[in-house]
């Protein structure tokens, strides 16, 4: 079996938002929609407070609450764990967006471009009008993964088969791969480092792990 997951090393992320920009460029998402974003947050309680850059987006949960509520079957979970949306089936009820504890889903009502009515070159290439009026979210660049796998490449190891956000990370803070492969990068990282997932109390079993360290004593 294959279970694709993402790992973000919070010790390394510098909050540069390069992954955010790469995602927008590759997926042609409209203004205000950030499938991959890096939150700049404060965690802890005074006086033990730290500023943390938290890459986030769809967590590709093992038990996706969005899938459960979707009335149309547009939201699907593939056997490799990637949660997808069929834009042609979605009716735009956004029950899924409300059910997502990670606020990973977006929706737009009309065509919008970064610079008014004129499309940029990348928007001409990547903008999908089917995204209007339906729920959208990160899909782990599933087309890239599928094309790479078809060529015999390994997602997470070969850039041609790896999500754009991971490829673009300047700090090596993001990793992608198969959790069920004990030799994958993500398996190594999770074996060797303490990690945490968001909103685990919701029982969603996210496919997005965060590596962290306490302050060295």
């Amino acid at each position: 079996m294959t279970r694709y997951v993402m790992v973000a090393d919070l010790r390394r992320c510098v909050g540069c938002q390069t992954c955010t920009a790469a995602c927008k460029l590759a997926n042609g998402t409209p203004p205000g929609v950030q499938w991959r974003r890096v939150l700049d947050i404060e965690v802890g309680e005074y006086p033990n407070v730290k500023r943390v850059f938290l890459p986030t987006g769809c967590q590709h949960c093992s038990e996706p609450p969005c899938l459960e509520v979707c009335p149309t079957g547009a939201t699907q979970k593939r056997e490799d764990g990637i949660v997808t949306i069929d834009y042609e089936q979605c009716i735009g009820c956004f029950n899924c967006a409300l059910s997502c504890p990670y606020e990973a889903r977006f929706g737009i009502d009309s065509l919008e471009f970064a610079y008014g009515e004129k499309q940029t070159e990348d928007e001409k290439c990547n903008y999908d009008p089917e995204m209007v009026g339906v729920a959208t979210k990160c899909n782990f660049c599933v087309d890239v993964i599928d094309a790479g796998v078809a060529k015999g490449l390994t997602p997470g190891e070969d850039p041609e088969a790896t999500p754009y956000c991971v490829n673009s990370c300047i700090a090596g803070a993001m990793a992608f791969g198969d959790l069920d492969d004990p030799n994958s990068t993500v398996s190594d990282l999770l074996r060797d480092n303490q990690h945490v997932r968001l909103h685990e109390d919701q029982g969603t079993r996210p496919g997005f792990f965060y590596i962290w360290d306490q302050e060295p004593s």
Partner: protein
Amino acid sequence: MKPGPDPHPQRFWDYRAACNFVGGGTGTGLLVFAAVGATAGLPYFLPGLVGLAFVGLGLMMVWFEIGRPWRAINVFFRPQTSWMSRESIAAVFLFAIGAIALGSAWPGVRLPWTMASPVAPALLTALTGLGFLSCQIGMLHAVRGVPAWRERTLMPLVGLTGLVEGLGLYLIFMALWGRVLPGMLLIALGLILARALAWRVYRVALDRGRVSPMTMAALERIRTGFLLAGHGLPAVLLVVALLWQEQAGPLVALAGAAATVGGWLFKLVLITRAAHTRGVSLPVVPVRGTSPS
């Protein structure tokens, strides 16, 4: 508003979605008590028609809200897990059975199936209506991104407020007909008190669940009005009506209107104002720059 780390108002469902919960609750509640009234010989056709109209208007408002209304047929495709699918399917049955019940209640009409029991279609419609209301309750509970909706104690509150809204309208019908049933007034009194108790339990649970202070503030803003105008006033009026039955009509109508409008206000606020997201909660305090290079 862009999603950020802190809880913020959900931005996907607006007053149109709230109207679905208002229409669904009021309509099904009315269908339930119209059927109960029919067993006591009260007319069914008009309250039954208004009940179905409320449900239909609520669903129509949702249709106006969804992003791709011309694909709305797809909503039926996942009843295995989706309460919205189940609600849609329940609506189909509700309108089909409701149409039969209305046909049966049309003055002067005696359809074959009404010979054995003239109120049977009305009771079946009421049961289907309760199923529809249950689906709406399930829809709210399934929303894990909004703690105030996910809260388990909201389920009886939404169910009770639907029944109270429907019964409130039915009290107005009874007042207009000049046929106020004391038993129905007692049921109304009981349901109003039960709704007040459910509200209290819900508020306490939200406090314990540490939902966003903004959610609590939104509910706090309507607390006095909801409790006094939506519960206290109708309860007092119903007691007076029970004691002074010769003049019960106007009192009962006013009590019904107050109880109904109180429920509508609560649902409108619940969906549009008291619906904040979970926000981001990182349970650890990481430190940058400590990873091996």
